[in-house]
């Protein structure tokens, strides 16, 4: 009964680690919006965790930026999580927010034939 309750809680409680995003070209782009409250914003500090390696790529963005696209995944199945925090003009630091996990997972398939009129013939 206790194990069932534990399993139930694991399923119903929200967790960022359970969601994922499929990126089709490996070029990662992530956006965000400015903080909703607090001291005036100065810049953002961010980092990527790639394939379980924390701080694989790190950097900072000015306060007016809301996009980061400097990382490319090269192997299908590679994954990344993006972490970002805001820093105020007096160096107060916000809590960190993180994205869903992004996987490099291009779609594959066969499309319909093009350029031939099958009814009228050649």
């Amino acid at each position, binding site marked *: 009964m*206790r*194990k069932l*309750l*534990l399993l139930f*809680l*694991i399923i119903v*409680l*929200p*967790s*960022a*680690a359970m969601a994922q*995003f499929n*990126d*089709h070209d490996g070029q*990662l*782009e*992530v*956006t*965000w*919006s*400015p*903080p*909703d*409250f*607090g*001291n005036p*914003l100065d810049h*953002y500090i961010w980092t990527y965790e790639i394939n379980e390696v924390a701080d694989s790529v790190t950097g900072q963005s000015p306060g007016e930026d809301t*996009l980061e696209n400097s990382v490319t995944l090269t192997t299908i199945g590679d994954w990344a999580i*993006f972490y*970002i*925090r*805001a*820093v*105020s003009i007096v160096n*107060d*630091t*916000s*809590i*960190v*927010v*993180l*994205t*869903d996990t*992004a996987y490099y997972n291009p779609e594959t398939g066969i499309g319909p034939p093009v350029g031939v009129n099958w009814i009228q013939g050649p």
Partner: protein
Amino acid sequence: MDIILNMLAKIYRRGYISRLSLSLMIAGSLSSPSSAEDGRVHPDTARVSFSWQVISDTVIITIQSLSEDSLMNLFISDFTDSEPVFVECRIDGEPVDSLPTEREFGSVYPDKYTTRWIAGDFYQNLYLKYYSSSYNGYYLSWSAGHPYPVFGMISVIGPPGTTAWQE
């Protein structure tokens, strides 16, 4: 939400889930579906969780012990433009009619009320709600003296919002 926290704490104490898993679960439950923010706890963030939110000038604070330890000698401080009014408090799930309170005007910030809500000792969790008109102060903090010195404070800048991958 407090019921969920109590259940998680009991499951953690019985060793069914790791501390990290419990912290992730609690962070998830506290930040969803409401707009509660996680505060920062020093020095040991793995033993105590702290969240806060402001809804229509009403401040809600939740402090949760994540270990077997009882938090003792705890008080909460805030600095507000108007005199705060006690609304609700629950200690370990039990309602409390009032808390011992110290209040002064201008003693710390010249134009603000300094209020200390003295919660004292509790085992697992504290829930406090109070109201202060035109609440705009990000000065909330709390401290406990036992079994180890620990304090918490809110972020004075919000986190980036609506973070999302783009194709």
